[in-house]
């Protein structure tokens, strides 16, 4: 039985915690969050402990799951590694490449597992598309488009709106797509991007990113924090022998509209896409099973860093107006 402590009781912390409670080979021991009241509230909801320091949490667990804002990952990961704990860290792994390198070094020195939570690999539509591509279903991929986003994200202390912390939608959000693109189509060669990130707008951000992959394929990635019409995801993989297309707006097997949504007015239709196993559960199950078996998980810390590298290159392109070439090693 692996004992687990979750750091950060925001959206992601609670999502991850729920997954551990369903696993037979893991036990959620408790939470740590610097917002102590929130930590206590969440802990009592889950019937577990709220630790009053990170050090106290580290003493009672085998696994640390880090769900705090991006720039805090480094210190938390390094401390966990030094304490000999296995680590699941939310994406993006680090705010900078140096941070990622330090985390990787700390984990390898301590001989612990460090897995970045690139959860898209557990979303069935993305996993299936990759399987189809690798099976040759579209021939050679030529033009790939992804789109992700919706309203501007809101969280504790509005930290997403602080570029220094979140890196904006390019680093925070479409890092998912960058990871999936690498995983499915291979390394990126160069990137050109435009974004609203540095235009001083109030809670609107948007980026359009073009990647040239080493395979020769061209990928277009949209990062959208400017769509009040709700969160949407789509992708399209066009190859020389066919195409795969997915649009979350059309993948809604269940839609409910209530006559009275409270307050007298009619309600809007709420679409749902229920799954037997949600992707976050599958991600955490894979991580825990890997740790339990002493096997490396399928997503490495280097994968997490490579995705950060693409995102930072795109941000550099936005800032310089130039094409940014991606570094050597595979």
């Amino acid at each position, binding site marked *: 039985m692996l004992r687990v402590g979750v750091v950060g009781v925001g959206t992601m912390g609670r999502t991850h915690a729920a997954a551990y409670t369903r696993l037979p080979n893991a036990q959620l021991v408790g939470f740590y969050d610097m917002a102590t009241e929130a930590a206590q509230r969440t802990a009592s909801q889950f019937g577990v402990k709220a630790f009053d320091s990170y050090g106290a949490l580290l003493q009672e667990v085998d696994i640390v799951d880090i769900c705090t804002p991006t720039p805090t990952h480094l210190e938390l990961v390094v401390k966990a590694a030094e304490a000999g704990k296995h680590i699941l860290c939310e994406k993006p792994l680090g705010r900078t490449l140096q941070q990622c390198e330090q985390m990787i070094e700390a984990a390898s020195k301590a001989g612990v597992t460090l897995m970045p939570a690139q959860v898209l690999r557990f979303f069935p539509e993305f996993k299936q598309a990759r399987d189809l591509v690798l099976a040759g279903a579209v021939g050679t991929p*030529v033009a790939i488009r992804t789109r992700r986003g919706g309203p501007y994200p809101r969280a504790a202390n509005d930290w997403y709106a602080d570029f220094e912390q979140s890196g904006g939608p390019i680093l925070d959000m479409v890092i998912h797509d960058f990871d999936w693109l690498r995983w499915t189509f291979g390394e990126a060669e160069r990137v*050109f991007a*435009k974004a609203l990130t540095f235009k001083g707008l109030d809670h609107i951000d948007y980026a359009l990113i073009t990647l040239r992959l080493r395979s020769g394929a*061209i990928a277009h990635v949209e990062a959208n924090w400017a769509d009040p019409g709700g969160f949407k995801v789509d992708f399209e993989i066009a190859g*020389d022998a066919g195409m795969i297309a997915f649009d979350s707006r059309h993948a809604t097997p269940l839609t409910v509209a209530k006559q009275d949504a409270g307050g007298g007015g009619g309600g809007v239709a709420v679409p749902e896409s229920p799954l037997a196993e949600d992707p976050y559960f599958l991600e955490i199950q894979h991580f825990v099973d890997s740790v339990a078996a002493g096997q490396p998980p399928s997503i490495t810390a280097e994968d997490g860093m490579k995705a950060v590298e693409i995102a930072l290159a795109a941000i550099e392109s936005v800032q310089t107006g130039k*094409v940014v070439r991606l570094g050597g090693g595979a």
Partner: protein
Amino acid sequence: MAVRIGMMSFAHMHAYSYAHCVKMLESEGRAQLVGVADHDPERGKQAAQQYDTRFFESYEDLLDAGVDAVIVCPENVRHRPLTEMAAQAGKHVLCEKPLATSKADGRAMIEACKAHSVQLMTAFPCRFSPSYIRLKQMVQAGELGEVLAIRGTNRGRNPGGWFIVPELSGGGAVIDHTVHVTDLCRDLLGSEVVEVYAEISNGFCHGDFDDTGMLTLTFANDVFATLDSSWSRPKVFPTWGDVTLQVVGTKGLAYMDMFAQNSTLYDDREMRITLQHWGSNIDYGLVSAFVESVATGKPVPITGEDGLAAAEVAFAAYESAKRGEPVRLPLPE
């Protein structure tokens, strides 16, 4: 008075739709299809028969037959000679897009029409789409606030024939599919493109022509846009392609999928699923506007300059892909 119109070549398939629109205007008493000439006489004769009009052995004969205006739809590289010939004969010109395959050709066409006091209109029918007109109204009324960014697509399939012979077409997918959305963006923003970056490939068809284009445009007013101009629709795709614009503003976001007014046909005999479009005929709006300008002398709504500005973005895209970096506009004359 009905405007008398001649068709100069049916090399571009849009000529058939334009001729059909002239016939519609004929039934309204606003236009008259005088005849057809084509450097491929077989094609010309067939088209003349199809539209119940005369076939002329030469373009000169057609221009001598008392036409007021011509619709020019040959291969792209022939836009210039045919437009110049028509201008010299004093005929107004509606020219298929892209206006020209080089800046010098486009400039010469504009000059020729000016010198002979005839109007030159570029065939950008998307401007007459009711969805686009509605979108433009909303943008102009400020309903989206200040426009910040646009994501556009104009995807299709390799049309084959002369479209994939660069000596006749001036390129491949990029010259074919860059100009419509570029024109809509220019029209919507009232601003010119000042920089183009493009990733281009021939990955779909593996030919000596480009079939994939992913362009990034920056406008003088700082708005940025991307445009996918690829021939990326599979053979079994249920329709020819698309024209889409997603407009991001400070007060909201609008998404237009111009040809999304369809019903789906499931056809067992053909073993195909196709979209059956029932939206408005935008080519009719285009030809009707041209005929009205010729009849009244009022300026055409889409000029030769508009056509050249959009084509220049395609030229810059090729230049960008060659150099591997963004290219500033205007390009040298």
